[in-house]
């Protein structure tokens, strides 16, 4: 009640002031920190917007409560990046039914009770990574001799959909191509785990051509393992996410051959929010394009993927 009256007072005070509530599922991940930073930066140039952040700390029930708090405080628009689909569908639908426009970011909710879903397609990014890797390895001596190039796949948590999709898309792309996965392991998105698994891969296989890791810290951990063994020069490392201070930095330092952007959608969400608040209609789905960053195109801001 109190929060609602404060919010409405703020609205009358400043004329065209809208309050947007942003429910983030877990700020423990750098990628999500980046998402919030992107939202904040995009909103900062619009003085009519006020952005309120809540962090559910990877707790579904806490996120549910935070969405309910937003509804009760009378926000004008809800942006939510839900931790899980099923348990967070009811509170999101509740907000939508009360007339609060809802933008769902990155992970989905069930049904259609939201205004717009903005997200990138992990499977497509995995496929793009696979296609890039096939092209890059075409000049590999083993491939030239009619054999197959040896690839290590360091997978993200395989009980999570991003991990499954990044693996599935990659495998679709290399099917029938002269690329063989000689070692695969679940590194649970964690750099120290990736380093351990890569050391094991190097202990078993002497002739690894490329490491495909489902995130950049994983690729970096693999690089560190290979460098310690003196193999870093012979192996290419490919990661996903392309955060400016992680993947892009590693590409710039020449550690990774490529990183594939997994866009946060922060800027797009603010653009959509403004359109919705101005009464425009927006499409129900907004699929985010991805970019690949290599040493050659980093200066130009990467290259758009099809």
């Amino acid at each position: 009640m109190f929060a609602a009256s404060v919010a409405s007072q703020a609205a009358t005070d400043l004329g065209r002031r809208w309050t947007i509530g942003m429910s983030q599922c877990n700020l423990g991940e750098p990628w999500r920190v980046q998402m919030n930073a992107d939202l904040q930066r995009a909103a900062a140039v619009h003085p009519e917007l006020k952005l309120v952040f809540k962090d559910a700390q990877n707790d579904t029930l806490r996120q549910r409560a935070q969405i309910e708090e937003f509804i009760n405080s009378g926000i004008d628009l809800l942006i939510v990046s839900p931790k899980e689909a099923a348990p967070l569908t009811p509170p999101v639908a509740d907000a939508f039914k009360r007339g609060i426009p809802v933008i769902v970011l990155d992970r989905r909710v069930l049904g259609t009770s939201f205004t717009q879903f903005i997200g990138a397609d992990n499977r497509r990014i995995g496929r793009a990574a696979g296609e890039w890797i096939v092209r890059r390895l075409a000049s590999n001596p083993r491939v030239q001799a009619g054999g197959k190039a040896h690839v290590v796949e360091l997978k993200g948590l395989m009980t999570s959909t991003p991990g499954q999709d990044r693996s599935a898309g990659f495998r679709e792309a290399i099917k029938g191509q002269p690329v063989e996965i000689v070692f695969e392991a679940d590194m649970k998105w964690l750099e120290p785990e990736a380093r351990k698994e890569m050391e094991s891969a190097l202990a078993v296989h002497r002739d690894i051509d490329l490491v495909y890791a489902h995130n950049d810290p994983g690729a970096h951990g693999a690089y560190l393992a290979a460098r310690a063994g003196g193999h870093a020069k012979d192996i290419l490392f490919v990661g996903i996410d392309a955060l400016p201070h992680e993947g892009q930095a590693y590409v710039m330092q020449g550690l990774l051959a490529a990183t594939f952007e997994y866009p946060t959608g922060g800027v797009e969400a603010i653009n959509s929010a403004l359109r919705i608040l101005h009464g425009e209609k927006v499409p129900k789905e907004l699929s985010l394009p991805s970019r690949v960053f290599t040493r050659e195109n980093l200066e130009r801001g990467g290259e758009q993927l099809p």
Partner: protein
Amino acid sequence: MKPPGWLSVPWMRAFLALLLVLAVGAVWHADGAFFRWNTHRDMLRQVAVPGILACGMTLVIITGGIDLAVGSILGLCAVTFALLTIHCGWPAIVALPAVVLLGAAGGATSGTLVGRLRVQPFIATLALMVFARGLAKFIAGGQKISAAVLKPDGTFAYVALPPVFQHLDARLFGGNVAAVTLVFLGCVAVSWVVLTQLRYGRYLFATGGNEEAARYSGVPVTHARLLAYGLSGAFAAVAGICQAVQEQQGDPEAGVAYELTAIAIAVIGGNSLAGGRGAIGFTLLGALTIGYLEKILSINAVAQSSRLMLTGVIIVAAVLLQRRQLN
């Protein structure tokens, strides 16, 4: 069933668990990878960080306590070390002792809560675990502290990593031993001196064995606890530095759940959670057992689900082996 005579020596039992795991490796050797020194060198590097935590854990367990805060203190110290050396440009010679002192101060806080204010070790260190993790995230601003430095305009500047990161992550003796492995052995040596050569070591055992009796016979129980938790915090700081140099960054999420690995290492070697009994040698054997187990599962590329189940089974088997009576 009465065990054969040689099994009544605790050392032999701890050794048996390690031999059992080594035998598994000899059978499933992943195309001979298990028989190459590199595999063993890498295992010794990997086990260094949890092993260092286990040294401190052993001291605390001997006093009859438990230290759940070591993983968080590791994260806090990794972040602080990265911040001081990379962003603030402190020389390593100043940053290293400063971070170890920070860890010791964290541990001493637990020690004071447990020793002087009579808070149960589980509760006191649980509180510190939560607090230290929060502090680590606060200091780091939610981001990893790396060579990419955020500028006010939202872009990143890239600075060079200080040489201490190279030196501590190096391999020595012709590339055959990781530097962090030597740090681990140094921590084992310090713990050995404390437990066996110093009077305070006997106080730790007396405190954990029978606190009342120890108090009546003039043992400074409160100080003994302060020492155990303080050293545990200092070891956690050393582990945090080792973690940071290996990751080349300070990750505020580093060390989550490492306290459980440290406890497993201490217990699997034969230290008693009841307190009053134990030795740092057990911890060393426990570290090797856990380290080899992980390495063998990893070189054979065993799926995560099977890994977790196998680890659970083998921990139980190893602990059952430790029992005095196999009845």
